[in-house]
C-alpha cells in the first residue's frame, strides 16, 4: 500500500498514516462545509441574515479544509479552532437558549443535519487542538521571535 508524498512520489503506509489526522480534519471540515452549503440556499431565501452567516461559515470551512489537505500553519490551525468554537457555540446557543427578542425567534430545532454538522465541528476542534501541539513553529517565525526577544 502506498500514498503520494509531498513531492509526488509514492510514499509508504507510515507516511500516509502520519498525514491521516490532517486528512481526517480536512474531511470533517468538508462535511461541515457541505452541510452549510446544503442548507445555505433555503436559509438565504428564508432568513437572509442567517443565510449570510451560513455563507461565511461555508467559506471559512472550505478554506480550512483545503488548507488542511496541504499542511496547515499554526495560524490556520488557530483560525480553525476559533472558527469551529464560534460555530458550535452559536449552534448550542440557538438550540438550547435561543435569541429571545433579538431576531424574533426562540429556540431553533435540533435536526439530524445540523446535529451532524455540530458533531463534525466538535470533532474538528478536538483534532485541531491535538495537531496544534504537534506543529513546530516555522523556523523563520522562530528566528523573528528570537530577534524580537533579543531586542
Amino acid at each position, binding site marked *: 500500500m502506498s500514498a503520494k508524498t*509531498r513531492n509526488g512520489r509514492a510514499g509508504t503506509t507510515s507516511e500516509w498514516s502520519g498525514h491521516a489526522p490532517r486528512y481526517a480534519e480536512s474531511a470533517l471540515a*468538508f462535511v461541515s*462545509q457541505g452541510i452549510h*452549503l446544503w442548507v*445555505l*440556499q*433555503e436559509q*438565504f*431565501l*428564508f*432568513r*437572509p*441574515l*442567517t*443565510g449570510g452567516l451560513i*455563507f461565511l461559515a*461555508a*467559506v*471559512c470551512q*472550505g*478554506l*480550512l*479544509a*483545503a*488548507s488542511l*489537505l*496541504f499542511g496547515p500553519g499554526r495560524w490556520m490551525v488557530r483560525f480553525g479552532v476559533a472558527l469551529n468554537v464560534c460555530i458550535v457555540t452559536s449552534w448550542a446557543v440557538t438550540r438550547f437558549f435561543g435569541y*429571545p*427578542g433579538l*431576531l*424574533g*425567534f*426562540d429556540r431553533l*430545532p435540533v*435536526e439530524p443535519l445540523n446535529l451532524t454538522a455540530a458533531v463534525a465541528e466538535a470533532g474538528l476542534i478536538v483534532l485541531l487542538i491535538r495537531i496544534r501541539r504537534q506543529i513546530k513553529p516555522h523556523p523563520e517565525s522562530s528566528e523573528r521571535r528570537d530577534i524580537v526577544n533579543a531586542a
Partner: protein
Amino acid sequence: MNMTRRSFLKMGAMAGVGLALPVGALSRPFDRIGAAGSVISPSVEPFEVPLPAPSVLKPVHTDSTTDHYEVTQKARTLEILPGMKTEVWGYDGLFPGPTVEARSGRKVVIRQMNELPVPVSSHLHGGRTPPGSDGYPTDLILPSGSGSSLGHDHGGHTVTTSDGFKDYEYPNEQRAAALWYHDHRMDFTGPQNYRGLLGMYIIRDEIEDELPLPKGEKEVPLIIADRIFNEDGSFYYPSIDPSLTGQGGVIGAYANGVFGDTVLVNGAPWPVMEASNTRYRFRILNASNAQVYDLALDPPPPGGKPFVQVGSDGGLLESPVSHDRILTSPAERFDVVVDFSRYPVGTEVTLKNLEGEGKTRDVMRFVVARKEKDESAVPDALAPRQDYPDPEAAGVTRRFEFRNGNQWGGMSTVNGKMFDPERMDASPRLDSTEVWEFVSDGEHPIHLHLVHFKVMSRNGGEPGPYDAGWKDTVLLRANERVRMAARFEGYRGKYVFHCHNLEHEDMMMMANFEVI
C-alpha cells in the same frame, strides 16, 4: 515570491472550495430573490368576466341524522385569466371549492380524499368541531398510496396521518352562519390555500329561514382572494420550496404576507354582476392570504350607508348595523345586504378596496340592469338576544403578544415563542369563560379554533364598528390591544389559535390551547 506547484495547488484548492463553491451556491437564491420582486400578472380588462357562482356540493347519501359527502382534492387546469391556463389545487378540482350547505343540528360527514402530491389537512373555519375533525396542522391526509414518508416530517414533530382519505365529522351544533373550509397543513397553509384549497360552508337554521332577508339567487357568496400570476397564467407564490415537501415559508421579502396584484371574486378576476334594483344579501369572505380589504361602493348610494350588516363570523347579529365601508381581514366573514333600489337602473357600481393601490383598488362591479319587485326586507330584529360570555365571570385572563418575524430573519411568534405542536400554551376548562387579551406589533387577524368570542374592548375603549356579534377572527392593526371573552364549550381536546395572515401562520405565529 516563488510559487511552487504545491502552493499553486493549495491556493487553487482554497479559492475553488473556499470561495467559488459557496458563491456558486448563492447564485440561485440571489436569482430567485431578484425575480421575486419583478413578477407582474398578465393584464386583464376589469369588469368583463361575469361573476361565477360556486357550485353546491351534493351529498353522496343521507340518513336520518347525517349528510355524507365526498370531496377529492386534486389538481386541475382552469381558465381564470381570460385565454390563459392556471393549474389549481382544488376541492374536486374547483377554485373556489364547492359550497357545502348544512342545517344546524344535522351532522355532516365529509370524506376528504387526497390526490395531490403533498399532505393536506382540512379545517372547517368557524366550526364547533371535535378535535379529531378540526384539521389540526399535523393531522395530515397523505397522498393516496404515498406510504409514510412524503414531506410531512415537520421538524421531527409528532404527526398523525391518514393514508389517502379521512372522514371529517361536523356535528353542526351551532347557529346559522357562513363558515369556510380550507387547508391547514403545518408550514404550508399559505401556498396550499393560494393554489385553491378553500370553499364555503353555510349552516342554516329555522331562525334565519323565517327572516325576510334576500334569498335564492339574491343571496350571493363573494369569496375575495388576491393572487399573482406568472406570464404563462400559473399562480406565482414565493415558496422557499415550491414542491411544498421540504422547508416551509416564503422568501424573506414576503415574510409579511403575499399580496396579489389581481383581485379574484369567486375565482374570477374583477368580475361583473348584473343585478336588479332590489336588495341582495352578500356573504363576504376574505379568503386572501394577507390582504385586508376596506370595501366601499363607488358611487355610494344616495341617502345613507350602503352596507347593512346582518351577520358576522358566528351568524346573525341581534340587529342590523349600517356601515359606509366594510373592513375585512383574512378569514373574516361579513353578511351584508345592499339595496340596489337606491340606484337608477343602468348605474354601474364598483366595489372598491380603499386599502388597495392601482388595479387592486377595484374588486368587482355591479350593474343595476333591470327593475324587479322586491319582497325582501331587513328587519330591525334579526336573531334572538345572544347569550354572550360575561367577562365578569371569567376565572382566567390570558395575554398573548403577536410579533412579526422580518425579512432579514426570524420567525413570527406568539408570546415570543414559535409554534410547537407539543407545547401547550393555554388550558381552559370545558364550559369555562376566559378573557383573552391580544396585543400586536403589526397587522394580525387572530383566529381561534373551536370557539366564537365576543370582542369586549379595543385599545381599552369600546369595540370597533366591525367587532359586532360573535367572532372567530378579529383584526388587530399595528400596536392594537383587543380583549375578548370566550366560553370554551363543546369539546375537550387540543386546538390552535393563530394569526390568519397565512404567511405569518406558516412562519410559526400559532399556539395551542387544550380544553380540559
